[in-house]
């Protein structure tokens, strides 16, 4: 009753850890069997290795957290040769998140990554707010996002999901633009831009000053955007933003998501993903639902 099939991702259940919150799986693999997961979205890969931003890189907010990791990763080649190799024993589909500064970076990384037998789909991070050059623009101008999507689609051997930024006036316009450009699916939402100031030092807590807000605080924004977008596109949505339990997953499905990703909650409880997966069947039974897919978009009708 939990298996879902999305382009490139044949999932036992609709729950995956979100990119950047699960590294390449090894760490949480010490806690539970990664085969339990519906899929794994791995940390953003870039053309070259990146160290990312100075620390502090995280700060807490009321019911949320800010991060400005800055896309730290060992570069696509290293990921292909090492991190993905480590995942070979596991049959959970991999959604490989890629990022870049310029279109060419994305294209380079996407091409390489999509050729790996271990990668089932790509997730274009056009929305990471923590990279100064380019990062933010790709995610806020529909034409640029569409152009990037086209270029990446042209070189990718696997389906391409575009991960949308919530920091826009018109999320539906954005979604339609990348759909038209050939996206096979959407991931939403990435983090909202936020900041906290330390009253003692009187400076922003994050060395990078601003960072991305995630966690339960942003869930209503995610639900609203997924509700709007899912009624205006014909490609599936991987929903995320503040998911902590099985009820949240159901709320995302009702809003229109076809699968979900869990980010910040992994830090609160390392067993969060398997726990949610375990709780879902009982919840569905209580709702008289045979398969979680039936819930998708049920909130759309007239009140």
């Amino acid at each position, binding site marked *: 009753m939990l298996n879902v099939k999305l382009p490139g991702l044949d999932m036992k259940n609709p729950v995956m850890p979100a990119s*950047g*919150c*699960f*590294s390449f799986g090894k*760490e*949480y693999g*010490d*806690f539970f069997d990664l085969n339990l997961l519906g899929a794994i979205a791995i*940390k953003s890969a870039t053309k070259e*290795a990146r*160290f*990312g931003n*100075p*620390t*502090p*890189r*995280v*700060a*807490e*907010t*009321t*019911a*949320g*957290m800010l*991060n400005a*990791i800055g896309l*730290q990763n*060992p570069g696509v080649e290293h990921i292909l040769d090492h991190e993905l190799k480590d995942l070979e024993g596991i049959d959970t589909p991999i959604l490989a998140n890629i990022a870049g500064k310029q279109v060419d970076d994305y294209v380079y990384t996407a091409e390489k990554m999509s050729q790996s037998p271990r990668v089932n789909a790509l997730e274009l991070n056009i929305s990471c707010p923590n990279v100064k050059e380019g990062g933010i623009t790709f995610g806020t101008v529909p034409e640029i996002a569409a152009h990037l999507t086209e270029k990446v689609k042209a070189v990718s051997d696997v389906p391409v999901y575009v991960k949308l930024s919530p920091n826009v006036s018109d999320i539906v316009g954005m979604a339609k633009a990348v759909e038209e450009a050939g996206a096979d699916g959407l991931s939403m939402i990435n983090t909202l831009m936020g900041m906290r100031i330390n009253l003692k030092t009187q400076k922003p*807590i994050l060395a990078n000053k601003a960072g991305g807000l995630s*966690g*339960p605080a942003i869930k209503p924004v995610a639900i609203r955007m997924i509700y709007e977008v899912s009624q205006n596109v014909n490609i599936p949505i991987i929903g995320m933003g503040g998911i*902590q339990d099985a009820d949240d997953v159901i709320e995302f499905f009702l809003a229109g998501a076809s699968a979900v990703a869990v980010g*910040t909650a*992994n*830090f*609160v*409880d*390392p*067993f969060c993903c398997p726990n949610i997966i375990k709780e879902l069947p009982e919840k569905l039974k209580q709702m008289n639902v045979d398969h979680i897919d039936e819930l998708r978009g049920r909130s759309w009708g007239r009140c």
Partner: protein
Amino acid sequence: MINEKMLITKNTCIAPKIYELTVQGDLVDLIREPGQFVHIKVSDGTLPLLRRPISIASINRNTKELTLIYRVDGVGTKTLSLRSQGDRLEILGPLGHGFPLDVINQGETAVLVGGGIGVPPLYELSKSLSKKGIKVIHVLGFRTLEDTFYQKQFEELGKTVIVTDDGSSKFKGTVIDALQLLNLNYQVMYACGPTPMLAALENGYSDKPLYLSLEERMGCAVGACMACVCHTVDEDDEKGYRKVCSDGPVFKSGEVKLSC
């Protein structure tokens, strides 16, 4: 490394804003080294959202207890201080790599340098070294005499010099000042405390083996989120960085750059 609902057997104030918390459970069996830490969900509710990293100050394998010493600072440690004996606390651990004990031999001397809330992990370290027959000297810095804690416990294990900013203990100044005055003869130095203190030690005491326990804001505390990294000193290092949570929090001096 497990996530366990541990039983609080004690949670009391031992100095202004300083609490001693003892919890009981199987997690204790897994602790390998002094200097490891745990990641605590301080409340059963949603807030505060993130866990708090706290060093293991001492362990008792017989009673399956571990003791943490923490300073009440923001909302998380405040919440923690309100938890009562008999409550259960969700604790993830033991985490990270602690102080190495095999870098020093029986009969040799170790200097343990602590500053403020960096003092706690040195206690289990001192116990472990003593048990191995190593002579321990403690140089511990606090703001005032009133702020000191565990003085007796450290004194039982070896010579203990308490340094205070305001001179309310015998030594006035910083631990660095005290070390200069004391001019100790030793083989290995271990330290935990504020980054400027660690940097000063690195500057002046890197001629002999020196191990530093670092602090960094954390997300996951298990190596998955990249919140807590620092650069390696060696620019040719393959990765170029270390994670404080899983590669540290203890590093040999010269391995990573201290950010301050």
